[in-house]
């Protein structure tokens, strides 16, 4: 089974939005999006269970994203493909899904996996856009995945309880972070990752038109950055043995008891 895993390089530490470009500051150190380690882990387990196949990482991001991809290679993925081009910066959902779909079409995997969400955009939506572009069935929030007879069975959590969904392959699945405990790369894995293929593709390599990505290909924009509204007056007290009484007084004042 050939599995493509979409993984993202996200800024590490405290994130900030640059006031002039109104974009997330991506100049500092970055790392593999933590939620994507769950998708990589699941891909490795499926490959192991199937007794063979290939796990390919597919990413869109700055050139230094290759470092983040190396971590996933150290976990056991076989090779990595990074779409990196100056023209891609500032891509929103519409543009990102377009470019990723182009790279995924080229890979033509049986299964495309996504993580729960990108730690910087908190979108948790990309898979649905990519699946639509690929015209493949899609299941999100997978908390359990089993493969057999050419189909996948997915158990997932919703607001109302659990769903069990079956889909034929090829398919697109987004996993929840509850699905597994990602393995730590072994020393051997870390050493071996250095010699695994890491390809960097330009837009031209994928025949992606420049006006379909970046700011030109995006359909959303940011007008202004504002401070969060304050919740109004707020009080904080230390419990000196009397806090319960102070809470009751506060509730009485608000007519809540």
């Amino acid at each position, binding site marked *: 089974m050939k599995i493509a895993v979409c993984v993202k390089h996200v800024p590490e530490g405290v994130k*900030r*939005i640059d006031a002039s470009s109104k974009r997330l500051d991506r100049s500092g150190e970055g790392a593999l999006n933590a939620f994507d380690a769950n998708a990589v882990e699941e891909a490795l387990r499926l490959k192991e269970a199937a007794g063979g196949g290939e796990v390919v990482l597919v990413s869109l991001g700055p050139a230094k994203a290759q470092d983040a991809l190396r971590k996933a290679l150290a976990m056991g993925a076989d090779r990595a493909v990074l779409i990196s081009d100056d023209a891609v910066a500032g891509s*929103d*959902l*519409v543009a990102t*899904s*377009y470019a990723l779909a182009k790279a995924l079409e080229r890979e033509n995997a049986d299964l495309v996996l996504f993580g729960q969400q990108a730690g910087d955009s*908190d*979108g948790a*939506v*990309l*898979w*649905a*856009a990519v*699946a*639509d572009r690929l*015209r493949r*069935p899609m299941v999100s929030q997978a908390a359990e995945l089993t493969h057999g007879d050419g189909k996948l069975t997915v158990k997932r*959590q*919703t*607001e*109302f*309880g*659990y*769903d*069990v*969904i*079956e*889909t*034929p392959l090829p398919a697109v699945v987004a996993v*929840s972070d509850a699905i597994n405990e990602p393995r730590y790369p072994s020393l051997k894995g870390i050493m071996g990752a250095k010699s695994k293929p890491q390809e960097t593709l330009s837009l031209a390599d994928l025949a992606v038109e420049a006006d379909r990505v970046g700011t030109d290909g*995006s*359909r*959303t*924009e*940011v*007008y202004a*950055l*504002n*401070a*969060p509204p304050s*919740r109004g007056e*707020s*009080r*904080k*007290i*230390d*419990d000196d*043995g009397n*806090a*319960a*009484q*102070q*809470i*009751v007084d*506060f*509730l009485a004042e*608000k007519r*809540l*008891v």
Partner: protein
Amino acid sequence: MSTLVFLEHHGNELLKPSLGVLSKAASLGDEDVAGVVIGSDVRALADEAGKFGAARVHVADDPRLEAPLAQPRVDVLAQLVRDNGYDTVLFANSVLAADVAAGLAARLDAGLNWDLTDVVRDDGRLVGKRPALQDSIYVDVGWTSEPRLALFRQGSFDPTATGGSAEVEDVNVQLEEFSTSARMVEQAHEESEGPSIEDAEVVVAGGRGLGGPENFTLVEQLAKALGGAVGATRAVVDAGWYPYSTQVGQTGKTVAPKLYIACGISGAIQHKVGMQASGVIVAINKDPNAPIFEFSDLGVVGDVHEVVPKLTELVNQRKGS
């Protein structure tokens, strides 16, 4: 502006967050606010939507639409937008709606802004309000395409019944093959006991700070004294301390009681989005730097094992006197 609102239902009810978005759309002053109900045997739900401001309700009623799966719904919405020229499509966030909205964005090459808490009209232009980076910054966002797609955080708007009635139109449902190849084989609904936390006026919620499942009795007793319901964080639900049906937050329920008391809860953003619309928030946490204090009206730095039982006793005394 002509706006279409995706109206999600569960069982025989339209969901409150979708009706809230519909009311909001109607309040923006458009003549043409429509809703769409998609499912099987759902025609009766369409009339309900008229009461919340929809002038028109499209009904896609088809057995193939029974299971709440996103992709066939994208087909229906794409067709409606193309045939009727809607320039704005609005959604209340949910597992289903997020996937529908993003699929539609790709299908129509239309901009999607998510996690919005409000939308305003500014000089004729639609502007979305979006908290970002753990709500530390509020971003004004817009669209450069039509249609414009938006997903709103649950609880952003209250539904307001205006008592109108809607013209109901049937959709001629046409589905893509790939949209219908995934199949729902089982749906298990967890129903909670006692007062539902979504309707309760008081919610007392417990987190990992309680120390163990046995200490949930502290929370239950306080909830009982206040006539409220019990909520929980995902951390304690994942640990098996309390049932999933009580989970509050991004992947659980969204609540907006008059009073929310958080006991031993750190206040992670994913929890916050499910309870921040509460009227008054009281937090008890022994860590003075816990994020929950940043959005509490009254924060108590203290031990839940000390404070909560005393509080229950005092509330019971007040009731008794």
